[in-house]
Structure formats: C-alpha cells, structure tokens
C-alpha cells in the first residue's frame, strides 16, 4: 500500500508548485497586459472633440483632422484591435471580406481616397488633367513614395495594380468598359485613353467596398492565387510585420512613410501613425471580444457591438461606445429572381408590400438608435439616398394595402400553400433575426415556409443553386457606396439574387448613369432607376443600419464615419 501511496504522493507533489503559482496569480490585483502606454507632451496645438456623453451619436468624425501635424515624438505604444473573424487572405484584390479590408486601410493606399464628404481626393496621386473631349486622362503620381519593401512607387505599379483590381471588381469592369488603354508614360506618369467619356474614372480609383483598388508592388500583384499571399505590402502609414493565421496580424509604424500634404480627413490626406504597433487580434467569440475590451486587453472593436449591450458598456467610464449614424450598411432580404414564386414580379411586389421593415431592422441590430428607414433605393444618408420620387408607395406597406393586400395577391395567384425556402445563417445573428421576420411575413401571406437553419459558409454555397433557396439575408454598401453602379444586386445576373431586369430599363439606366457627366443629369437618371426598383423589386431593401464602435476612452482622434475601420492612423493614446 505504501508503494501506491508514495506514487500518489508524487503526483500530488507535482500539483503543488502549480497550485502555489495559481495562488500567487490569484493574489494579484492587476491583469498582465501587453499594452504599454507612453504619454508624451505634445507641443502641437490640437483640437480634440471629446464627447461628454458616454454614448456618442457620431454624425461625422469627432475630429479627424485633429491629430498633431507631425510625428515629432513616438507615443501611443501598441494598439490592439479585435477582429471578429479570421483573415482569409492578405491579397485585398481577391477578397471583399471585411477583416482583410480593415487591415488594408492601415497598410495600403489608393491613388485617390474619399474624404469625410465622400469626395475623391488625391492620396498617392499628385495631379491629373483631362482632355476637353474627355477622352484622355493624364495622371501624375507623387514623387518619393516607397513601398514597405523599399521599392519606389512608379506609374507601372499603379497601372498594373489598378488593372488587376478592375479584372475583379464590378465597378472596375464597368469603368474599364469605357477605357481603351491604360499606359505608363513615364516613371510617375500614366495616361488613360477612353473609348467614350465617363465621370467614373476618379471614383474608380477611390472605391470603398467590393474589391479595394489599392496599389501594390509586383511582389504582391504577381502572386498566383493558388499560392496565397503571405505578406501585405503597400505604401501606408503602417507596415506588415507578421501574420499568424487565425490568431493575429501585427503591423508597425512605417518610418519611411510619405504622407499627402493635405489635412487628414477620413481616408484622405495626411495619415500619421502614432502607435508604434497595431496588433489585430482574431477573437471569434462575441462575448470574449466584449470582455477583453472591458478589461483593456484590447483597445478597439471597429464595429459590431451588439445593440442590446451598448447601454451597459456605455456606462463603463473606461469605454467610449459610439454609434455611427451616417449609414454603415443597407440591409435587406435577397430573393431568388430565377426560380420559384419570386420569378413573378407580382409576388415580389406583394412581399415588399407586406414586409415590416422596421421589425426586420429591430431584429437585426436593435432599437431605433441603430437604424433608419427611407423610401429610397440607395442608402438614406448617401449622395442619392433618402429622396422620395413618387414611386415609393410600395415601400410603405401601410399606405399601400400592406399585409392584407399582399395576402389577396397571393390568393388571387393561387399560390396559397406554395413552398418558399428561407435560409437562416445561425452564426450571423445580424442576419438571423431578419430571417425570422421573413418567415413570419411569408407565412402570414399564405406561403408554406421551409425554414433552413445553417451556417454562413453553407448558405453561401446554397445560394449558388437557385433551387435550394428563395430568400436569404445580408447587407450591402451604405452611404459610402452611394452609386447604384456599385450595387451588383441591381445589375443583371451579377449577384446571388440574379436580378433579370426583364424590361432592360435598369440596365439602360446604369449605362446612362455611367455616361452622365453632370450632377443634375445623374440625379434624374437615379430617380428613373429608383422607379424601376420599386416596380421590379430585385430584393427587399429594409433601410440603413448604423455601425457601433467600442474603444477604450484613452484612445483619441479615432474616426467613427460610416463605421469604416480607419481608426489606427491619426489616433493616439492619451493620458
């Protein structure tokens, strides 16, 4: 027996040191943190708008031009940013995924970039001219810009990167449909020869959403897709350090960064990297992400703070919880235009008539602080959003017969009891809530709803096969994607709803819009397109949702605009 006791005693002894260390850990009253806060007196006069209320409704950047003018001192230490999903690729020309996009904002740059008024302004570009007939554009890049690998930026890089982007991007392919040739004419100059004039060229260099027209060196744009990029190289204020897939991606201040001369404004102008490093940490679990922000293990959640905990988190004096009321996305129910009941436009109209969009938005993101509705095809807060043109009657179901009228239509069409497949992605709560609203609405209309609960990856596969679904839920671009040409759901067969545009009027509208050169001309065309939208109902558009951002209160200068994650430059850690 003693032999066994001795054996157990040895095992127990093994546990002893661990227990002691455990006790030591328990006895400590601080949390080990990798964040090193460095406070430096800044002599530069800055204007910092500090919010008085804990929960800020940010209609514009709090102060995106408020950063000190130069990086005279190194302060800020490390910023830790939470990513909700793993980074799938570092080749931003090959993904529209939001995580890679978020990092790309810090590392890579466009030739032109949107300022806070969503006007495309020079970033890598120095100047340009356009011929009187609009058939030739001549561009000149800024001198002295180097990629993070030391290679000087040339016109050839710009031409190749922009052309590569256009091969993928829907908007890019529209623009390149007008372009005859893009040629590098010198070290820093290139020309764009047009087949016919269009006002889209500059917008195409600044594009947000979809694929990003960032400029890369050959080491990146020559990587075959099958190999995958292991680094992200650009000209931005931060340079890539390491990527541990599924765990984190680290960038550090790029010391040789050559900023634009103009004041920083959203994505445009001067970008000062005040943090020594920015660590993007993948935290797949929502609760862990919030808890890590609360205890200061991370500094920033760029978007996706659930609406139901905004008030609770807002009560924490160490946190700054913001709602970006300038329209992050346009949410909706996408319907199958090529198979099943929705191929009949009368059924699509009935669905729109009956749809309680407010309920869907509430189910998606929370109470009225987090969304808005408007009788508009495009995002309410966008350039061409929020206007009524007389065609919006069908949008407001209460004034248009609503559910009762929709039920009658389904009855008259003899479709009562017809099967309708509604997909619900359980791992995307944002879209899972509206799926329940769609189910309820369709059942009330008289359909027999087959409700398929699955994960997002499965849903993305099923939506490729029209016979496997009738309704799924997602979101498109908000105010930052205000141009209907950016909306592939409106283009024939370009998105999963496979809009057919039987009359051809939407396609014609797009072609006209691409050629329109004055603002009034463009507005008139968009109104025409909106008429077609409410007649055809390519998908059900709910309204605009606002992004939510959570940030440690000692981070200053960060921007809450369109819920775009542009928070790592011109931002710093305060006292």
């Amino acid at each position, binding site marked *: 027996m003693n032999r066994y006791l001795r054996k157990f005693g040895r095992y127990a002894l093994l546990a002893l040191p661990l227990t002691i260390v455990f006790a030591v*850990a328990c006895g400590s009253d601080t949390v080990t943190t990798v964040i090193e806060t460095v406070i430096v007196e800044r002599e530069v006069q800055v204007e910092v708008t500090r919010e008085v209320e804990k929960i800020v409704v940010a209609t514009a950047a709090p102060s995106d031009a408020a950063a000190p003018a130069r990086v005279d001192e190194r302060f800020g230490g490390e910023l830790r940013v939470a990513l909700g999903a793993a980074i799938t690729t570092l080749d931003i020309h090959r993904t*529209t995924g939001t995580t890679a996009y978020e990092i790309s904002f810090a590392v890579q740059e466009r030739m032109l970039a949107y300022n806070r008024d969503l006007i495309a302004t020079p970033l890598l570009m120095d100047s340009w001219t356009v011929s009187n007939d609009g058939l030739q554009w001549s561009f000149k890049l800024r001198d002295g810009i180097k990629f993070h690998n030391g290679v000087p930026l040339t016109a050839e890089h710009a031409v190749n990167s922009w052309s590569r982007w256009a091969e993928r991007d829907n908007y890019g392919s529209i623009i390149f449909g007008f372009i005859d040739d893009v040629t590098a004419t010198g070290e820093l100059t290139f020309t764009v020869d047009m087949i016919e004039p269009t006002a889209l060229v500059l917008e195409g260099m600044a594009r947000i959403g979809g694929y990003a027209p960032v400029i890369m060196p050959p080491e990146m744009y020559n990587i075959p897709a099958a190999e995958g990029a292991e680094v992200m190289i650009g000209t931005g204020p931060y340079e890539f350090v390491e990527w541990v897939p599924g765990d984190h991606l680290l960038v550090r201040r790029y010391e040789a960064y050559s900023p634009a001369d103009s004041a920083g404004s959203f994505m445009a102008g001067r970008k000062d990297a005040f943090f020594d490093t920015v660590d993007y940490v993948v935290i797949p679990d929502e609760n862990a992400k919030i808890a890590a922000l609360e205890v200061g293990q991370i500094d920033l959640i760029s978007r996706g703070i659930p609406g139901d905990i905004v008030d609770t988190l807002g009560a924490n004096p160490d946190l700054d919880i913001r709602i970006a009321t300038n329209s992050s996305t346009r949410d909706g129910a996408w319907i199958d235009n090529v198979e099943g009941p929705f191929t009949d436009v009368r059924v699509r109209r009935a669905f729109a008539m009956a749809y309680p969009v407010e309920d869907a938005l509430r189910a998606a993101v929370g109470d009225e602080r987090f969304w808005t509705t408007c009788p508009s095809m495009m995002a309410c807060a966008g350039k061409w959003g929020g206007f009524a043109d007389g065609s919006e009657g069908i949008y407001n179901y209460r004034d248009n017969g609503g559910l009762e009228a929709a039920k009658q239509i389904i009855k008259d069409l003899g479709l009562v009891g017809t099967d309708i497949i509604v997909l619900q992605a359980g791992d995307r709560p944002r879209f899972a809530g509206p799926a329940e609203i769609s189910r309820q609405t369709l059942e009330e209309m008289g359909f027999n709803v087959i409700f398929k609960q699955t994960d997002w990856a499965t849903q993305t596969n099923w939506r490729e096969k029209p016979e496997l679904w009738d309704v799924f839920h997602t979101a498109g671009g908000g105010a930052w994607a205000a141009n209907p040409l950016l909306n592939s759901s409106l283009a024939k*067969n370009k998105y999963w709803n496979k809009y057919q545009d039987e009359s051809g009027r939407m396609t014609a509208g797009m072609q006209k819009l691409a050629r329109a050169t004055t603002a009034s001309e463009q507005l008139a065309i968009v109104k025409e397109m909106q008429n077609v939208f409410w007649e055809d109902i390519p998908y059900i558009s709910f309204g605009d949702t606002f992004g939510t951002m959570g940030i440690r209160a000692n981070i200053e200068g960060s921007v809450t605009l369109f819920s775009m994650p542009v928070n790592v430059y011109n931002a710093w850690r305060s006292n």
Partner: protein
Amino acid sequence: MTAYIIKRVLAVIPILIFVGVLTFSLVHIAPGDAANIMAGDYAGPDDVKLIRKELGLDKPIATQFVEWVGRTLRGDLGRSIYSGKSVAELVRTRVGPTISLTVLGGLFAVLIGIPLGVFAAWKAGSRWDRVIQIFAALGISIPGFWLGFIMILAFAVYLRWFPVIGYVSPAESFTGWIRSITLPVSLLAISGSSIIIRMTRASILEVLREDYIRTARAKGLANRAVLFRHALRAGAIPIITVIGALAGGLITGVVVTETVFTIPGLGRLVAETVKNRDFPVVQSMLMLLASLYVFINLMVDLAYVFFDPRVRL
C-alpha cells in the same frame, strides 16, 4: 508483447486510410467551399467562379482525391488555401498551447478525479459522497462553453485575476503562461475529473463488494491497504479505459476551450478551418488527431498489462 505492439502499429495503417477517405468524403460532401469564404460577402457568382478556378477547387472530386492521395503518400500534408502556409508549419506554431492545455488539463483531471472517486466509493452513501457526486454530475452536465464564459466573467472581468483572451508561452513569461492557462486548464480539468470520479466510484464500489476484499478486511488489513493495494488495482482497468477516452475527449474539448478563451492552439485551428472550409488543413488535422487517438488507445491497451496480470498481449 513486441509482436502485439508491431501488430497494433501496423493496424493503424488501414485505420488511417479509412479515416483519410472518410474525411476527404465528408469535407467534400459538406456544403460550402473556400472560394465563397475568400471572396467575401459582397462578391457575386462570377467572382466566386473565378476564385474557385484559380484555387483548383473546380476540378472533379476524383481528380482532387487522386492529387490528395499522391501528396499524402509523399508526406506532403498540403497547404492552407488561405494563407498558403504548410499544414506542418501551422501545426508547429499552434501545438504549444494545445499541449499545455491537454497535458495539464488531463493531469489535474486524474489528480482530482481518482482520489475523489475512491473517497466517494469508500464513503458511499455519506454526505461527502453526495457532495462529490453532485460536483461530478454538474461537471458532466454543464456545457463547457457556458462554464467557460462564467469563469471569464467571474475571474477575468470582475476579479481581474486572469486575462480574458490569449496565450503566453512559458518561454516568454512563466507567470504569464500560468495566468493564461489557469482558466482553460481548470475548465478541462473540471469536466475531465467529473467523468473519472463517476467511473472510479462505480468501479471501486463494485470491487469493494467482492469476497476477497471481505477476506482482506477479515485478515485485519488496514483500510488504506485494502483500498489502495487491493481495491484500486483491481478496479483500475475501467478507470484506465475512461482516462484513455478522456484523452480523446480532451482533444475535442480543446476546440471549445481554445475558442472560448481565444487561445491559438490546434483546437481553434480545427474550428476555424472547418468554418472556413480550408479543406487541406481540415483533412490533415483530422488525420493527425485520428493518429493521436489511435496511439492513445494503444497506450491504454499496454497499460492493462501492468494493472491486470491476467491480461496477456
């Protein structure tokens, strides 16, 4: 015994072939692929088709299977579709946290489970027995992810004793390592020890009713001698079996634990690659885990010989 071991090792080969074919079939039957995930939410059908072609995911399944078999036979476990990194490299960078969690989680499960199980059996029907049984029942029935969140809330958010997320390697900071693994190891140990407690208690209780135990007591042997020299050894076989199964359970348990505590280990790698349909990594990871499981079972079989002389291999 040597012949037995060789036979068992050779038997692993058809098992791995079976597992390989099964996992290949399962991951390709499962809907969804990497092209859709990589393309992102705003991409349309043409984008996905293009990416699928570039990644070679549009090839017929039979072709992909032949290519995969060829690569595997050459010892090439493949590369991640997303990062381009080899599976071997991904495993190398992720294995440290998982070893820390599984080894310590298993160790504490055994250290807590066996003594408490023996004690509960010895004091069967007493208040102590009931308390231990309630602990075991709760440990088995409470979902790991829920308990993990409660632990985070209590010890990391409110008390701030431990970090909410992340892992620190012992080479970087020993105290940091202890802090980062305390909660996840506790979670694994609680669920693991609960199973061991129940099995140990049942097994010892059965042995304690045997005639030879009564004889040993009648001979005047001390309680400790009866319990540890006779009862525990005789009841060890089912306990070892459970510990073997527990080792398998730990492998699957780390998937949940590493996700809840944001620890970059193999468990999270598996969860992420399944979610993202990173087929080459999923296939290789499942093969590796299956091999590990088979190895653990072999160890358990060999342990029988030590504890039960009647077992001849």
